[in-house]
């Protein structure tokens, strides 16, 4: 007598298909992807898109207002106090912001992930040491330390990216530590140990895939954080140095004219807002799509 076959599994979608399906239904994710995509394209093709050289000054074309304030289409977003075309500077500024965001967040992601996963996986002394490092890092005032180091080392883009990368890893470490601890306690980790998997393989095949959605979400948050921080440093005059077209620097330069010509700060400010807003929204969307149960 052969026992009956168990009824075949219900046709549920694979995790990847489910995610894709949720993503296509998620309005915020679609909107933010489009905006982000556009900004990336603008940054990549800046030389083709910008009507002028962003560094070229013009004494006769200073402080031209944008079209919506009665300016001409020659300078759609007007010119600044040195007669540089705002639109061109804005377009090149996207490069600065994206580059800083990606590199800084990338560096801190590597540092924070290694720390968080080792703390969560190995526990014990490793965990205590990582927690100590996290506490030290959190105790240091980021803006102050970043400003001080950048002012002592000089404000090149490279240095800013490195300094911020070395400062913004705390959230990666904190979140990945607790996420790893949760995954570590799952029985499939012990099953893998029993099946002779080496530690490196467990970390790579069992732990990492299950914490990666956290990683992506924190990456977007920290990218946004880095972009805002760079703008803040540049605004305070200790970040990217003129004449680089950084949006923060543009706001800082427009500050002098604040009382009369507020468009000079409105335009780069709105660009900055839009970029950070869509990055954050993208991160929220990714979280909704990858871990719908952790939506809150």
């Amino acid at each position: 007598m052969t026992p009956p076959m168990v009824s075949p599994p219900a046709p549920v979608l694979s995790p990847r298909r489910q995610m894709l399906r949720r993503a296509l239904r998620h309005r915020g994710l679609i909107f933010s992807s489009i905006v982000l995509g556009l900004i990336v394209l603008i940054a990549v093709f800046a030389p083709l898109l910008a009507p002028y050289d962003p560094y070229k000054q013009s004494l006769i074309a200073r402080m031209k207002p944008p079209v919506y304030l009665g300016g001409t289409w020659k300078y759609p977003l007007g010119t600044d106090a040195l007669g540089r075309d705002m639109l061109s500077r804005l377009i090149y500024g996207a490069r600065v912001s994206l580059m800083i965001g990606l590199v800084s967040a990338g560096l801190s992601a590597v540092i924070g992930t290694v720390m968080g996963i080792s703390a969560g996986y190995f526990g014990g002394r490793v965990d205590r040491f990582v927690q100590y490092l996290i506490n030290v890092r959190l105790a240091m005032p980021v803006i102050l330390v970043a400003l001080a180091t950048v002012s002592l080392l000089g404000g090149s883009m490279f240095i800013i990216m490195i300094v911020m990368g070395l400062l913004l890893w705390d959230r990666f470490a904190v979140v990945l530590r607790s996420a790893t601890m949760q995954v570590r306690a799952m029985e499939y980790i012990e099953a893998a140990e029993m099946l002779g998997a080496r530690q490196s393989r467990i970390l790579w095949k069992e732990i990492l895939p299950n914490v990666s959605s956290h990683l992506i979400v924190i990456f977007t948050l920290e990218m946004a954080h880095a972009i805002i921080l760079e703008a803040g440093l540049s605004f305070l005059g200790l970040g990217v140095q003129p004449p680089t077209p950084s949006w923060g620097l543009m706001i800082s330069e427009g500050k002098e004219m604040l009382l009369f010509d507020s468009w000079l700060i409105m335009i780069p400010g709105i660009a900055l807002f839009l970029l950070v807003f869509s990055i954050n929204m993208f991160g929220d969307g990714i979280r909704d799509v990858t871990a719908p149960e952790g939506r809150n």
Partner: protein
Amino acid sequence: MAALVALTVSIISFALIYMAGDPAVALAGENATPDVVAQIRAQYGYDRPLPVQYLDWLAHALRGDFGTSPYFRLPVSELIADRLEVTMILGVLGISFALLVGVPMGVLAAMRPNSLIDRAALFIAVVGQAIPSFWFGLILIVLFAVNLGWLPASGADSWKGFVLPTIVLGYYATPAIMRLTRAGMIEVLGSDYIRTARAKGVKPRKILFKHALRNAVIPVVSLAAVQMGFMLGGSIVTESVFALHGAGYLAWQSISRNDLPTMQALILIFSLFYIFFTFLADVLNAWLDPRLRK
């Protein structure tokens, strides 16, 4: 742990000035002659071995002596004591603002997840998190000081001068507090013990305030302490936008003038404040949650 962290932070603040190489050169300025540099080196004791310098600095710092500011030509401790008040007032106002807005918004959102209120609150949070604070400060100045003339654009002569800085400092912490309150409340409201309270016939209002809120604010307390620490750091931006002469503004001045002793002292003091706030939060949480008591 806290003591170890404080010690480490002191080492880092001390070491910071060596990052660019010789601090004596940094202090003297780029065009200084070797004689001047040597004189400064001797004056500040930079010619001694590093551990000796550190221990000496720490010993003085513990007595509240951070040396003399080369730029202001005043004792650093006096300078900071003078300026700290404004920053502390601002910090307390800022965190109060964030809590008073963030917690009720989070509770309201959590009571009806996915409702209009919830979506609106989340949207405000995402928008708020994306506005750079220095830019927001400038916009507020244009709107309320320049166009409407209701509030001063700078200075701390009356309470009016604190309104805009408080908003600028507080709004940035609000989304995080709101989200955490919301998440905590949703989790707690779905918990078994809330169901038990309902099964006992406890009135909904009492369930919300007595049973749910107390459990939900425990993580918020920790977050608020962290945010309070961030706010001290953030005061550097706010104070320079509104030209408030607080510790943050002093930090900015000392950094742009290469005033190393002041820079060191401020980083150490801000860090110690952070450590103190988190300690305070731990004490408060132990009072709220008996499981955290030893």
